[in-house]
């Protein structure tokens, strides 16, 4: 019986090997187009790309009626007309996704001269880490895992990836808000996001008639939940960006981490200086940690004025054309050091 089973296992392995070849040759691309568009775009554009720009909605969102509707990466490209900046975008992406996109770059085909990766401060917060969109993002990575393509496809059918339910993710987020201790240089009455959020919700803002200004309270609470955290090495996104930086150093590729602007003005006016302190402290942590070797942190944190944010009633990194142009110009200023001869003043 052992002999029979052994022969059949060998035969089965050969069949699987052949089927994997057939799937990779004829069906994989269709599945990638459906589930992993970004990975496919990287593969397709690599031969004619000088610089990749990895980002989320901050790059491509514009205000209807903007005098220019170009993305930040496109505006940046205006400064370097002779080089090709290709943007790879997906809503709600973060370091944990970008590090997988890097693996799609085949350095033997055409090594890009530089990488620009969006560094979004909010992507380090518990709400984004445990976002309900994470399942979809994780699903988009399954087909590009470093295993046989047919196995990856089967894993996709089995939903064998980080496939937590929305409820599970929400519980993890609430747990983080409840347990992660906030650290300030001077004593502060709230120790956690939950406490701060609760404190803020207790009638901080009143209207002239004495009733609660619930819109303002909700927005202030949202700012707390978005920015109240102390970055440190245990943050999963820090680990992701560490991997990205290491990969770039290992492959001798210039990396620009484009730290997006946040609405510090509103954070200050709605919540107070403690929140602005945390934002600045986290920015300093990122700049200090990643400004080394091939990596440059492009600090745009306070570059955009509060009125140039598209979403005035929520925390996003969506800017009108003025905001996008300011960030693109700052980024181009940093790129200029590397692409001196290609640089041309666009505005």
């Amino acid at each position, binding site marked *: 019986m052992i002999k029979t089973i052994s022969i059949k296992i060998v*035969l089965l392995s050969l*069949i699987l090997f052949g*089927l994997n070849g057939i799937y990779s040759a004829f069906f994989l691309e269709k599945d990638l187009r459906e*589930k992993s568009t970004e990975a496919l775009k990287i593969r397709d554009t690599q031969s004619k790309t000088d610089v990749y720009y990895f980002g989320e909605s901050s790059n491509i969102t514009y205000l209807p009626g903007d005098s220019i509707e170009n993305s930040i990466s496109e505006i940046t490209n205006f400064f370097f007309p002779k080089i090709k900046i290709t943007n790879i975008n997906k809503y709600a992406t973060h370091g944990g996704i970008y590090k997988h996109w890097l693996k799609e770059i085949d350095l033997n085909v055409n090594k890009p001269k530089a990488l620009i990766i969006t560094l979004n401060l909010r992507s380090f917060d518990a709400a984004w880490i445990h976002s309900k969109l994470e399942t979809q993002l994780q699903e988009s990575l399954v087909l590009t895992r470093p295993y046989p393509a*047919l196995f990856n496809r089967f894993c996709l*059918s*089995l*939903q*064998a990836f980080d496939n937590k339910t929305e409820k599970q993710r929400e519980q993890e987020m609430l747990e983080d808000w409840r347990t992660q201790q906030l650290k300030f240089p001077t004593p502060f009455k709230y120790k956690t996001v939950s406490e701060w959020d609760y404190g803020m919700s207790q009638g901080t803002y009143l209207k002239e008639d004495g009733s609660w200004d619930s819109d303002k309270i909700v927005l202030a609470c949202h700012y707390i939940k978005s920015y109240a955290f102390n970055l440190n090495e245990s943050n999963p996104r820090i680990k992701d960006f560490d991997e990205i930086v290491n990969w770039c150093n290992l492959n001798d590729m210039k990396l620009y981490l484009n730290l997006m602007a946040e609405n510090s003005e509103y954070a200050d006016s709605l919540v107070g200086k403690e929140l602005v302190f945390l934002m600045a402290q986290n920015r300093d942590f990122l700049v200090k940690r990643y400004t080394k070797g091939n990596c440059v942190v492009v600090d745009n944190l306070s570059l955009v004025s509060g009125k140039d944010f598209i979403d005035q009633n929520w925390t996003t990194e969506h800017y009108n054309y003025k905001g996008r142009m300011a960030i693109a110009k700052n980024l181009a200023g940093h790129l200029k050091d590397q692409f001196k001869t290609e640089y041309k003043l666009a505005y």
Partner: protein
Amino acid sequence: MLFNSLHFLFFLPVVVALYYLLPHKFRWVLIFFASCYFYMAFVPKYILILFLIILIDYFSALAIEAAKGRNRLYWLVASLLSNIVLLSFFKYFNFLNLNLQQVFLFFGKEFHPLNLDIILPIGLSFHTFQSMSYTIEVYRGKQRAERHLGYFANYVLFFPQMVAGPIERYDSLGNELKKEITPVYKNFSDGFRLILFGLFVKMAIADNIAPIVNEVYHDPLKYSSSQVLAAVLFFSFQIYADFYGYSTIALGCARLLGITIMDNFKTPYLSRSISEFWSRWHISLSTWFRDYLYIPLGGNRVKLPRWSFNILIVFMVSGLWHGASWTFVIWGALHGLMLLLERYFSLIFKFEIKKQWSVLNILLTIKTFVLTSFIWIFFRAESFSNAGDVFTAIFGGNTISNYENSFYVPVVFIVILMLSDLVLYNSRFDNKLSEYRTPYRWMVYTILLFCLLAFSGTQKFAFIYFQF
């Protein structure tokens, strides 16, 4: 734990390997803990309900056997009531309250029912029915009460069939679990064949159809008549592939352990009448209702009006067994009604279906399929208004198409399913495959494997019958 999960694909080989490594006298312990682990992967605390059912029926059966005269009946009633109360509490409590509220409203009174936030334990209807069949058989004197609590627990808990059947009887599964089994090559080959085929049917066929059906049923009025009609027909195949796939995997898993469980399906869509359909669809449930409800009500040894009443009662209860909603009751009632009409027709016109295939039989098969497909609308719809929307959409003549995805892949797989049914008519996949020569068998394996690995649905859907 779902059969179509990576978790299960690791769990099963470990259990099978340990099963054959352990001496026979310890295997029941392995099966017990493996089954508990399997079940607890869903909602761990609900295992306590199962333990309660096991204890109630284990001790009731012993008491029935020990008692004399009417005391036997009292013990049986106590056992059945306990099972039904448990089932009703988890499955029908909110349904009952909702209906009471409607009745009160009808009489102009207010009633504020207690609405419990209960999740129905997976497969509860299956466990209770299986366990109840045991105490009834002990009461009837056809089955000796089991002394070994472990074996009895395994009869209720046996992981391949615990959450969606087949609903086994103690004289078959109970005895199978006690057999001393040595590793036999045929058990492994049959087991793997059945699992491969079952996974193919569930993941490549049912899960590719499910997104279309879900989308159309969600808002049928958005789609054209032909698209809604297609979705209605697709659902017939989806539920068949889903449940048939599950049952085939269950058979395969049990076979790997050397245990035989009953077939739950025999190519039901090749039935020429509704009565034949019910002898081929969910056979373990049909036979349960036949043995424990239909026959005690008098079966077919009563006059036609009483028989008609019996049939309607059995089918309506069967509908209610599926779900706590009037749509399920109507689904059951319509099946009962169709069965009655068939019977009256054959009585009036002295019509009998001949066994050999003919054009008439093909037309009758199509008729049965179309009828069951339309009746499935009540099973699939979330409410009467949803079912009404489906009918309105089909017969409303809407030609505006809102469905953009292709029907191509599901249709190809449906054709494969029907072809396989034609080949497997009155047979089963593992047995049929044994008739083929090795190269042909391996060709079938290769095709199934490729379809399973490369074309399975990319959204995972739990087995439909898990909710019952």
